[in-house]
Every structure is written in structure tokens, then in C-alpha cells.
């Protein structure tokens, strides 16, 4: 029975069938990989490029980055403080979820994009204090609309930079490549 199947597959029509099946499998796999790289659905399609384009500093909305471990997401009151003074955005349909959320006092559920696993203890403050710019890890936000993760935050990505920054300084290298600096 198997022999008859192989014989059928060996003829031109069979080869085409095999090709179609392979192509379908590869494209399905590629689609799966592509899906994992998509930015998650956000409650408001927040345009980072527009805000950065207006010259608003990253730290104006994410001040936590300079002070502590988490950069934080601005409270909706902070968003609304600017937006309710702008006639165009006050009535905008795109911002209706924000207005609604402020009026009923229910927080918007933003979906975090740049994340590290639970076993990594990341501190924004140390990185900002060491002179790193936001875009070194988060990419150029002036070219992004809804936040997406430009690179996978894996250990190689972190360690490469740590080694570069430490350079020939032994004490710094010991501290920056110590397991206990990030994992505890």
C-alpha cells in the first residue's frame, strides 16, 4: 500500500502535491513566529511617535525610570491633564476610552510590552544613572506608534552591553557580570 502511495507521489502531479503541502507547512510556521512578534492589543492606540515628535521627554511620562526599578506607566489623570485642555483631543473618538476611564475612575488596562522574566531583577535607575538612553534598549520611539518590543531582552543582550561598559575595569566587570547582580 505504501509502495503504491510512493509511486503516485513520484509522478509530476504527486511532486506538486508534496510541494504544496511543504509550502503550506512552512508558511504556517512562519505565521506562527510572526504572531509572537506582534505588539499586544492596547486599550488606546497610543502614538508614541506623535508624542516624541512634539518634543516630550520620555521621563516626563515615565519618571520612575530615573528614580527606581520601574519606569511606570503614567496615570490616566496625567494623560488627561494635558488632553482635556486640547479641544481636538478632548472630543476625539480615539481618546474616548481615556475620557470614559477618567470620568468613572476606572484605570485603563495597559499591556506591558518590554518585559523581563520574574527571575531577572531589573532596575531602571541604575541604567539611567550610568548614562544609558532609553532608546538603547527600547528602540527609537519616534518611529513607533503603539509600543512594541524592538529586541528580545535575553541575557546575551544584557551581558554584551555590561561587558562593553565595564571595559578593562576589573572591579566593574566583576560587579556587572556577577550572577547576583540580576538574579536573586
Amino acid at each position, binding site marked *: 500500500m505504501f509502495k503504491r502511495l510512493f509511486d503516485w507521489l513520484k509522478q509530476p502531479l504527486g511532486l506538486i502535491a508534496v510541494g504544496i503541502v511543504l509550502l503550506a507547512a512552512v508558511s504556517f510556521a512562519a505565521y506562527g513566529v510572526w504572531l509572537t512578534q506582534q505588539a499586544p492589543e492596547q486599550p488606546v492606540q497610543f502614538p508614541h511617535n506623535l508624542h516624541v515628535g512634539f518634543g516630550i521627554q520620555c521621563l516626563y511620562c515615565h519618571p520612575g525610570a530615573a528614580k527606581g526599578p520601574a519606569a511606570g506607566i503614567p496615570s490616566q489623570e496625567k494623560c488627561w491633564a494635558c488632553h482635556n485642555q486640547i479641544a481636538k483631543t478632548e472630543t476625539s473618538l480615539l481618546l474616548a476610552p481615556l475620557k470614559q476611564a477618567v470620568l468613572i475612575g476606572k484605570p485603563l488596562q495597559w499591556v506591558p510590552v518590554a518585559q523581563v522574566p*520574574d527571575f531577572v*531583577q531589573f532596575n531602571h535607575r541604575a541604567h539611567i544613572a550610568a548614562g544609558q538612553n532609553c532608546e538603547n534598549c527600547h528602540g527609537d520611539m519616534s518611529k513607533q506608534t503603539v509600543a512594541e518590543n524592538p529586541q528580545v531582552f535575553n541575557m546575551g543582550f544584557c551581558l554584551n552591553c555590561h561587558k562593553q561598559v*565595564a571595559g*578593562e575595569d576589573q572591579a566593574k566587570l566583576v560587579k556587572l*557580570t*556577577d*550572577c547576583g547582580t540580576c*538574579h*536573586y
Partner: protein
Amino acid sequence: MIKVEEIKMSAEETGKWGMLIDQDLCTGCQACVAACAMENNISFVGEEDAGYGRTMHWIRIERFWEGEYPEVKMTPNQPMMCQQCGAAPCEPVCPAFATVHSQAEQLNLQVYNRCVGTRYCANNCPYQVRSFNWRDYERPEPLPNQLNPDVTVRRRGVMEKCTFCIQRIHKAQDKAKSEGREVADGEFTTACAQACPANAITFGRVDDPESLVSQLAKKHGHGVKHHEELGTLPSVTYLKGG
């Protein structure tokens, strides 16, 4: 490729962080055990696993009997936690390099994401202070709300142990650095030392002769380090009969 120079500790050297436990002051109230469990997200294993001897504690109060029944005498309470050995028996036996020595902080680390759960380290620890996550222990609502965000929540199959509250060390160092100064002695302490109502536990820099730990050890004069004969160079000193 830059190599990190390996710093081997010799018997004359002290580590960086150290602890002093005054057994004459310890009342065995277990406040340190509770505080440690809260600070470090330690799971509660429940009745059944406790019956198998799988309880999870990073610190425990040991108590022994001396003499023959009925002439028994109780020894002082002895809090026992990871001694953060300078030459730790747990480290060389790990096949995954999950338990490594921190060159920067001179502590024994347990890297949870590297651990594959061979339990070799726990079997080689002369102090029996490592505990293993035999299961994913359940935390019913609202208990997850009290988890410490600075500490990894361990999953099934990894080993864990006392870290000398390394998250607090890092927090203090980060704060000091942001203010442009060194970490001051007594600025922070471990959860167990903080909770101890009798002040039996003192934590600090042992390489600094001016710190409280060094001063107390010097004042007492004959502190004991457990299993020193094994050459483990522990960082915890016990004071008794002062």
C-alpha cells in the same frame, strides 16, 4: 574576550557580609523564621509534604538535648541559616553552575533559572540549610498579594536557600549610589535581624572593623563558627556563654 579574575578566599580573610548570632539572647520565638518566609516568598508546603520532611525554611531554630534521660539539659536556641561559606561545599558539586560564588558580594548565590534540581548541593551542605521545591505550592487568594516583588517566586524543581537578603543589599547600595555615598553600617539589615525582638541577630560588613558586627564579635571575644574544621569559612558567627 575579557576574563573575570577569580577571587579565591583564603582562611585569613573574612568575607564581605557577615552575621552575628547571640545565642544567649535568642528566645527561640521564631519571629525570624516568619519574617524570612514573608520577605523571601517562601512557600508553605502543607501538612503532607511536611510529613515527608520537605518543609521549606531558609532559617530554622535548632535545639538539642544534652545528657542522658532524665538528666537532660536543653542547649541554647541556635538559629541556623546558610552560612554563606567562603569555600562552600555546595558550589563545586553543581553540574549546572546554578550555585556559584558571587565575586562582587562574596555570597553564595542560587541562580534559580539555571537550577535543574539535581539536589546535589543540598546533599553536600554540612549545615542542611537548603530547601527544595518538590512541587508548585499553592498560594490561595489573597496570599499572592503579599509576595515580595524584589524576590523571584521559585517554581517546582529548583533549590533555594538564604541569600542574606541580597535584594535588601542591592536596594541599599542603589540608594547609596543615587545619593553619591557608601552604604552606611546599620542602614539596612536582613529580614530576620529586623524581626528579632531580642536583637540576637546582627548583620553587617565583617571586613569593616568599625561595623557593629565586628565590634560585637571583638567585644565577646570567643565567637564560634560552625563546622569550621571542614574549612568552609562560614560568614556567620555564633556567640554563646558570654
